[in-house]
């Protein structure tokens, strides 16, 4: 297990380097600079600005400087929010985004796994059909539709919850964003769990467990559930990618001060250091989370570790 873990961790670093390099190249090769929108600058001011941000140096030197900065946790200055460094913006926004994202994944598992088990147990009955239809609907709807609709129904019409805001993470403000993010993930988890549980229940070792006279519930909990959860576990990585993408919308719709909103604003303002910093941070987070999901998978299914 340890060797497997080390091998997987070793694989992360080159991938992260490629992500950093690719985003650096694309961003720097772009036509148009961050100061294009300012009033016409005199050449001297322009040259000073370029020198201040290191834009006058050759690309390779800029790249080296950026990498050295990253090692010290320095993502460079933000070009659109002049009083902040990118590191400060990330430090402000990340706790918000991580809280909302992890809660959403947790909620998705709490809804999705039992729903999948239920649908598999009551296969081809009313409950199964309605759960399957509901899951299909939840998968089809993008977060920029469900988010505003939830706000319209639960906040503006029913007045149960606030429309938007953060208020230092007060639970009332968390419900709608977390629900919006969790819904499609929960639907995916439910589908995966249902499918794999049905498959597992058909397998020979379940048949032999039944032949030994074990009851349905005991077979389900003791023998079928653990292997049936594997697809849901391997979906955790893509689920996080989904939640991260969704957070761009959800943070905009519900006015949360998270990193997703900075990324969108940075893209609109052509704030290159900000966009790159966000991509690097998100890339690292996703790789890390994928690693954790893989390790969990390896722990649940020993066959994976040995190939």
């Amino acid at each position, binding site marked *: 297990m340890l060797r497997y873990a080390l091998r997987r961790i070793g694989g992360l670093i080159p*991938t992260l380097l*490629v*992500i950093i390099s*690719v*985003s650096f190249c*694309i*961003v720097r*090769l*772009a*036509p*148009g600079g961050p100061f294009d929108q300012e009033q016409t600058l005199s050449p001297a001011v322009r040259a000073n600005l370029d020198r201040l941000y290191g834009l006058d140096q050759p690309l390779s030197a800029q790249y080296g400087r950026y990498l050295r900065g990253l090692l010290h946790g320095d993502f460079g200055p933000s070009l659109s929010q002049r009083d902040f460094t990118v590191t400060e913006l990330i430090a402000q926004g990340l706790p918000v985004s991580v809280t909302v994202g992890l809660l959403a994944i947790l909620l998705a598992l709490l809804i999705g796994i039992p729903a999948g088990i239920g649908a598999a147990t009551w296969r081809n009955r009313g409950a199964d059909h309605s759960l399957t239809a509901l899951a*299909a*609907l939840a*998968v*089809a*709807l*993008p977060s*920029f*539709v469900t*988010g*505003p*609709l939830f*706000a*319209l129904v639960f906040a*503006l019409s029913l007045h149960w919850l606030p*429309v938007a805001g953060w208020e230092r993470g007060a639970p009332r403000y968390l419900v709608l964003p977390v629900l919006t993010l969790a819904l499609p993930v929960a639907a995916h988890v439910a589908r995966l769990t249902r499918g794999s549980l049905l498959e597992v229940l058909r397998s020979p070792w379940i048949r032999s467990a039944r032949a030994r006279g074990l009851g349905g519930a005991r077979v389900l909990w003791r023998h079928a559930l653990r292997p049936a959860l594997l697809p849901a576990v391997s979906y955790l990585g893509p689920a996080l*990618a*989904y939640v*991260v*993408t969704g957070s*761009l*919308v959800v943070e*905009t*719709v519900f006015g949360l001060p998270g990193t997703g909103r900075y*990324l*969108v604003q*940075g*893209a*609109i303002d*052509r704030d*290159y250091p900000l*966009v790159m910093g966000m*991509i690097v941070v*998100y*890339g690292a987070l*996703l*790789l890390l989370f*994928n690693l954790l999901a893989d390790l969990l998978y390896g722990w649940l299914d020993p066959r994976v570790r040995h190939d």
Partner: protein
Amino acid sequence: MTEALAAARGGLWREAGRRLAANAATRLALAVLALLALLALIGPLFSPWSFDQLDWQHLALPPGRIAAHWFGTDRLGRDLFVRTLYGVRLSLLISVLASLVSLVIGVAWGAVAGFAGGRTDEWMMRFVDVLYSLPYLFIVIILTTLFRRGSITVLLIAIGAVGWLTTARIVRGQTLALKRREFIEAARALGLSPAGILVHHIAPNLLGPVAVYATLTIPQMIIFESFLSFLGLGVQEPHASLGNLINVGAQEMQSAPWMLLVPATLLVLLLICLNLLGDGLRDALDPHER
């Protein structure tokens, strides 16, 4: 040999078509889609308004209030019926074209990687893996940051440029299987160049399964486009896309909920139908999946 193969393939497609037609949900989805596409194409002709025309007498008018504005108007008095249908038209257009773009890139990439094999294959597929590890939309956001915003061509290329990863993987797998077949061996023995084999013998054999996969990606492309337009990175005002209509609707929903509900309903209808069609198509081609 070739005749037998062709017959078997014809049979496979006919069988798939029969299964597709037998599926009631798929038939319904197809009918609704056809209706929506037709409506998007000719619907605006029946309204006296154009998508950017302002009606100062009727600002933020709810639907059904007066006959001229069937779905109401927005804050600037522009007709929502026409704007929403323009949005549907744009969404369908961009998604179909973006699917084509990603199809071309994916087939080229995957076929070359699979056919070349060895070190080339390894590096090309490693590149795909790395892009896979980032969420698609991040790459699209980087790309839209770079170029002029609001240009539909840029949007199209950006969306198409990230949709090809899965296609490339599928194509590579198929190519690996194909290149060991006898007719490729025969072509090589006859002295055809690798590029010639790739274009004349590999590519035509890939097209069927890959084209089906490409149609399955259309709803994904619609979501990409609307997502970007929703965030303000895609289609720009005064042009209407379902995404930016929903964005405006979300801002106005307190006083004018129809501005959100009209485009949202159409988008949802579109996505559900496309998904049903995709599921039906997959079931029809691969009954094993069920």
